[in-house]
């Protein structure tokens, strides 16, 4: 019995077919693992290692480099308050202080009920709506202390369940099929294209010399 559920295992195998080399699927597979478990558990990382042909340490070492990949449990909602320069100028720093007081945790912490993990994040490219907040990578802004509290209350009450999936589910649109045109078929085609190009070039040069 693997760490991935049968359904996730099937999606994982589909992902592997998208890349010429298996290791390229490592990060998409980590996202998939987080969709299943909310974070990267050791058994899931071991299965990703098996699927991509690397060691579990390499999976951990790669995952730990990236902000979005969590090897420890986080809340159902990962709340990121942006304090980078565009948000800072519009009160992002003050909004983070408010969020810390309101949720009762410092940035990086998780509330006792495990509903919310608060993060101070770098620019989320939502600067025309500064100060901006992301909840499981869904964007909100501009927010005040009051509208932040309102957002938290609604998240807690489940009012955003259709908009903000639980932490780990990055995208709800998947590619159904694998690669449609195998690489060797494409390469044969490219060879033919290159040959035709060389012919056109030679013909153009011959015409030039003829003049």
């Amino acid at each position, binding site marked *: 019995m693997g760490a991935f559920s049968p359904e996730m295992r099937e999606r994982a195998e589909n992902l592997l077919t*998208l*890349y*010429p*080399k298996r*290791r*390229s*699927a*490592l*990060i*998409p597979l*980590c*996202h998939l693992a987080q969709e299943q478990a909310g974070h990267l558990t050791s058994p899931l990382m071991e299965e990703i290692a098996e699927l991509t042909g*690397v060691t579990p340490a390499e999976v951990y*070492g*790669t*995952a730990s*480099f*990236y*902000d*979005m990949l969590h090897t420890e449990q986080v809340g159902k909602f990962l709340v990121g308050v942006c*304090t*980078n*320069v*565009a948000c*800072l*100028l519009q009160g992002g*720093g003050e909004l983070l202080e408010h969020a810390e007081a309101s949720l009762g945790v410092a940035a990086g912490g998780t509330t006792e009920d495990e509903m919310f993990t608060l993060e101070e994040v*770098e*620019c*989320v*490219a*939502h*600067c*025309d709506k*500064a100060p901006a907040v*992301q909840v499981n*990578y*869904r*964007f909100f802004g501009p927010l005040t202390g009051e509208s932040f509290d309102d957002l938290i209350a609604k998240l807690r009450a489940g009012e955003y369940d259709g908009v903000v999936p639980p932490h780990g589910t*990055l*995208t*709800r*649109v*998947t*590619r*159904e*099929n694998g*690669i*449609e*045109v195998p*690489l060797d*078929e*494409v*390469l044969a*085609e*490219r*060879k033919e*294209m290159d040959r035709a*190009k060389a012919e*056109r070039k030679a013909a153009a040069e011959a015409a030039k010399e003829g003049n």
Partner: protein
Amino acid sequence: MEQTNQVPKIVTSRIGLEESWGIKTYLATGGYTALRKALTTMTPEQVADEVSKSNLLGRGGAGFEVGRKWSMLKPGPVRYLVVNGDESEPATFKDHMLIENDPHQIVEGTLISAYAVGAARAFIFVRGEFALGLERLQAAVNEAYAYGAIGRNIFGSGFSVDLVVHPGAGAYICGEETALLESLEGKRGFPRIKPPYFPAVIGLYGEPTIVNNVESMSNIPWIVNNGGASFAALGVGRSTGTRIFALAGHVNRPGNYEVEMAKLTFRDLVERPEYGGGMRLGRQVKAFIPGGVSAPWFAPDQLDIPLSQDDVAKAGSMLGSGSIVMMDDHTCMVRAAWRIAKFFWRESCGQCTPCREGSGWIEKMMRRIEQGAGREADLDLLMDACDNISPGVAWPPQQTTICVLGPSIPSSVASAIRMFRDEFLVHIKEGGCPYE
């Protein structure tokens, strides 16, 4: 998104339309006609020729000619095309908008480019945090498959290509093209040692690879439909066509504005009612960042510089990622520069000592000045740390690191010290921030 001048909207024409991200809207507004034209009536060289004629400058940050980049592609049996949608330069939010609101345009531009360079497979690398963008782009790819624009024998032309949407996982450094390729190979986003300077020589899996930005790709369908010469007719000199400027900070109307290159000045963009609508609360400009936080700052007397790559470079900064951050006279420059330093410290990949250590030292010194524990000698020490990362602390910068993240660190800190030394001294003498 609003546009009131007579210049055509090249990349933002569908922004604001109903379901602008769906294939129905795309096809109703001329979508996939350029792909059909390229595949069924043009050779790959003819497509590349039009792009060269357009003189389209890469819209990611470095501003390298797209056509020239393509021409450097080393011949080889396997070639790849990778589209960089990892937009993370602080205060830049144009690619985010394009990915969410016109994903088909990116797909079409990518397919045309794959044809022009003979790519065996194309990947669109999307910043992981763009969850909605990832969903809409994948949906667009699924629709394009069903429509016959991707896959086998596209539009009966004999050309086949697959396109994969690849999610990132949160790391600014992956916007650097060689770090992006490492990440796409399933590794940490460590930039590769140069030379080779271009992935066109050694790229994804060691094969020749073209890496182009999302906005660059979005321009390709228009160029194919209207010709490179029409594109080059817009703008001034090397800065051709239109470009999206992401205007942020203390303006009344922050937003993305597509304008003709080099025809407007920073002041036009900030003050005109159809763009920024002036500074918030009628306040004065204290300083502004002309092209993302990697760029040195400009003073109010530089507002009349045109929005052209060469004019901004001549004035000692860069147009970079096309993001402009306005700061008014109530802004604490120490705090702003500290926050930017903190960003680079957090995002340094850690490979090179000057960047890894230097960013941390600078962040710590900036923090202690802002929080009131600074010393006057810190100012020299800060400039010395900057000098160790980028000798001379000038623009264009000298580099002691594998990639350009390193020399981007001093830009804001050195600008703030040079332009607002008195403000640092007030922090130090009063033992705290005078703006709090």
